[in-house]
């Protein structure tokens, strides 16, 4: 699964740590999602979408 996390984070000038703090996960997890090493669970995907004020479909899409 691909995602636009890095792009959307960069647009807001947030660091991975900033985003991790907002999502209450580790920076390691944000990095793993951005690099495609980890697909987030549905609850985390909803939290990410909420932080970016967008929908899950807008953030994540199949390969």
């Amino acid at each position: 699964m691909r995602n636009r996390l890095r792009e959307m984070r960069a647009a807001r000038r947030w660091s991975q740590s900033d985003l991790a703090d907002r999502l209450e996960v580790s920076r390691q997890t944000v990095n793993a999602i951005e690099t495609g090493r980890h697909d987030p669970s549905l609850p985390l995907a909803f939290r990410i979408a909420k932080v970016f004020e967008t929908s899950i479909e807008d953030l994540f899409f199949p390969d």
Partner: protein
Amino acid sequence: MGREQGGRVEREQARQAWRDWIPALVTLGALAVVDEAGWFGADGSARLAWSLANVVPGLLIGRAFWRGLRRADEYQRVLQLEAMAIGFAVLLSGVFVAGLLDAAGTGDLRRSVQIAFVGSVAACVAALELRGRAR
């Protein structure tokens, strides 16, 4: 972008992990030294008691793993479970080899089992570090 510092969540997790692991590792190390040096009757009259005392660091390590899993977020939990599987495989192989060596009348079973246990914990921690640092 340069290497970023860990976030608030990671700093708090690291603090708590140290708090859980230090007593476990200190107890394990101290018991290994007492056993090897044969102090306080560890190689004679109180051998059984000192051998059974190894249950304490075993339980402390189990507690540290458990609390680490409870603190971890979803990705860290996957990494930790994979590392524990590697540690378990090392322990299984180590105890198997220790048993065969003992059956063949070679080596000291207590020492072999202790090496297998310490090795399994080390393998688990190493796997966690290596996987966690992969970028």
